[in-house]
């Protein structure tokens, strides 16, 4: 084994560790953020007992869950019951393996890029891991040996399969524009500005100030992606799988302690993943609207990325605080009758536009 191989191995392991830790802390923070924002939107204060502004509340919750007794129902399918939360969490973490979150940094003469692996099928990898996440939910629902979780699991599998189609279809126009499935390449394709817009005539110069982000080209695809993404994460208003008011918590009704915490972690990781995908594919990734400040070097793009991701996390929370849950048949109708045809239409339209402009 050569030295470069060892160095690569160390760098990769370090990256995995850092990403793992950062994501874990981030989830704890997002849980706090969500509770706080939802509370203020409902004229409440939210958590404020532990730490400044209640920042440590999520930590305390996590510790409580860790020390709680894990209970397995007697009717449960024991192995699967224990496996399901692990699958959920693993899929959520693995999705991050190919998500880039910044440019690169020079450490000890070794250039380290801000991602674990730049796959040339990066986007597909994220989607594949997203589709594996269904198993965690479905198996949890089935293996609990109880009614409500089973209903939650069935609902969720139908929902996730349906919305995955719209999600994937809405991303194809972006892939066509960028000509690559590698997320880093897609971000690079979005640097710069639009430039003068010919058909606007004299006001076309405005384009010189508009960044070259795909949201300005593929707005319908972006909206479809957003809706399908919210559904894919099982978040309100599409949280049919959990539906506390109808299904007593849905697929994780029977879970407690650390296993429940793993589901919780997975859900919020999915929120981060979908947010990051939206930023990378439609909002130019770490490309800011301001020129790069050379003093800050690699920090500036990273900050831009984090800020954009947080905007989307806020959007998720905002939707949750605002919208009531959809009825199940409405959910399916939206998925199959609105989102998928719309995504297909936009795919055809953008394909024709690209063919025309070549």
């Amino acid at each position: 084994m050569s030295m470069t191989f060892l160095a690569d191995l160390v760098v990769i392991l370090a990256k995995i560790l850092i990403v793992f830790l950062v994501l874990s802390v981030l989830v704890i923070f997002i849980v706090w953020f969500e509770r706080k924002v939802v509370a203020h939107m409902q004229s409440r204060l939210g958590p404020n007992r532990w730490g400044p502004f209640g920042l440590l509340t999520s930590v305390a919750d996590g510790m409580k869950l860790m020390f709680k007794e894990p209970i397995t129902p007697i009717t449960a399918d024991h192995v699967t019951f224990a496996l399901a939360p692990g699958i959920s969490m693993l899929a959520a973490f693995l999705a991050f393996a190919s998500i880039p979150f910044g440019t690169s940094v020079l450490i000890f003469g070794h250039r380290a890029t801000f991602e674990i692996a730049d796959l040339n099928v990066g986007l597909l990898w994220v989607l594949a891991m997203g589709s594996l996440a269904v198993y965690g939910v479905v198996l949890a629902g089935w293996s609990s040996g109880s009614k409500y979780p089973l209903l939650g699991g069935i609902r969720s599998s139908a929902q996730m399969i349906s919305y995955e189609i719209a999600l994937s279809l809405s991303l194809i126009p972006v892939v066509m524009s960028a000509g690559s499935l590698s997320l880093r390449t897609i971000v690079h394709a979005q640097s710069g500005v639009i430039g003068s817009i010919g058909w606007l005539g004299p006001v076309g110069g405005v384009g010189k100030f508009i960044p070259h982000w795909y949201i300005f080209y593929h707005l319908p695809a972006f909206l479809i992606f957003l809706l399908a993404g919210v559904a894919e994460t099982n978040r309100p208003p599409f949280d049919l799988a959990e539906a506390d008011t109808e299904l007593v918590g849905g697929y994780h009704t029977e879970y407690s302690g650390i296993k429940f915490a793993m589901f919780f972690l997975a859900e919020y990781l999915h929120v981060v993943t979908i947010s990051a995908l939206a930023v990378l594919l439609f909002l130019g990734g770490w490309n800011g609207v301001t020129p790069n400040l050379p003093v800050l070097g690699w920090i500036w793009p990273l900050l831009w990325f984090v800020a954009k991701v947080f905007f989307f996390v806020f959007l998720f929370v905002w939707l949750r605080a605002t919208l009531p849950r959809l009825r199940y048949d409405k959910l399916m109708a939206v998925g199959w009758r609105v989102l998928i045809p719309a995504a297909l239409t936009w795919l055809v339209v953008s394909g024709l536009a690209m063919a025309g402009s070549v």
Partner: protein
Amino acid sequence: MPDERPPEKDLGPLRATVNVAKGLWVTLRHLWRRPITIQYPEQRREPFPRFKGRHVLDRHEDGLEKCIGCELCAGACPADAILVIGAENTPEARYSPGERYAKVYEINYLRCIFCGLCVEACPTEALVMSHAYDLASDSRDSLIFTKDMLIADAPLQRRPSKEDLAAGEDVGDFRILKEGLARARAELGKPQRPAPPGAGGRPPAPEEGRPAGTASLGQSASAEGSPKRTEVLEGAPPARGTQAPGDVPPPDPSAPRPTDENISPR
């Protein structure tokens, strides 16, 4: 099988989007508003003037109990929450003006529905309802309030005084003023001291020099900024640390507890 439900009116995509946007705008607006909640154990909401909280047994200005042990309150109570056992006043141990006094007076707050009928029924206006509202406990026994918990240390003031109104203080109908006892003393001179109490009794008049208003209701805890529940239930045994040690004789074991057997069936 044909679908029997009437066809649902579908909002168009535009209307739906507009509606969603409206909702989002509402929540966003509220994000910047001040929360309307209060931080309960630290801050307390002052109830409305006629709020019906837990009961208090009043005293006369001279320190004698107003309750005459007539049991009308117990009779009026629709929930059978009140137990009164009267006894004769004697010249040696005089607790109330008139012939009789309440030897045992207990209210079971697990049963009480706070309707106020007992207060209506009281011929001497001895029983009033205070503003104390946090009556939670983790034991059933501690929610049966005995006479020494219910009785006020000082006469209650029934109407806001002119001074209070001038000071602009929002006072309820029944409210203990911290100065109440002092003023009563100043007007009446030294209050009449009853004879040393017998078994089961309790010195009706407060000791001299004791800080007045220790039994103020509802507002004491917030005024002192103490979040402890035991002190909120002023008059409950743990809160009596403020009293002089020799002040209270040990509770009479012979006094009957208001169990289901000895609460008279209606």
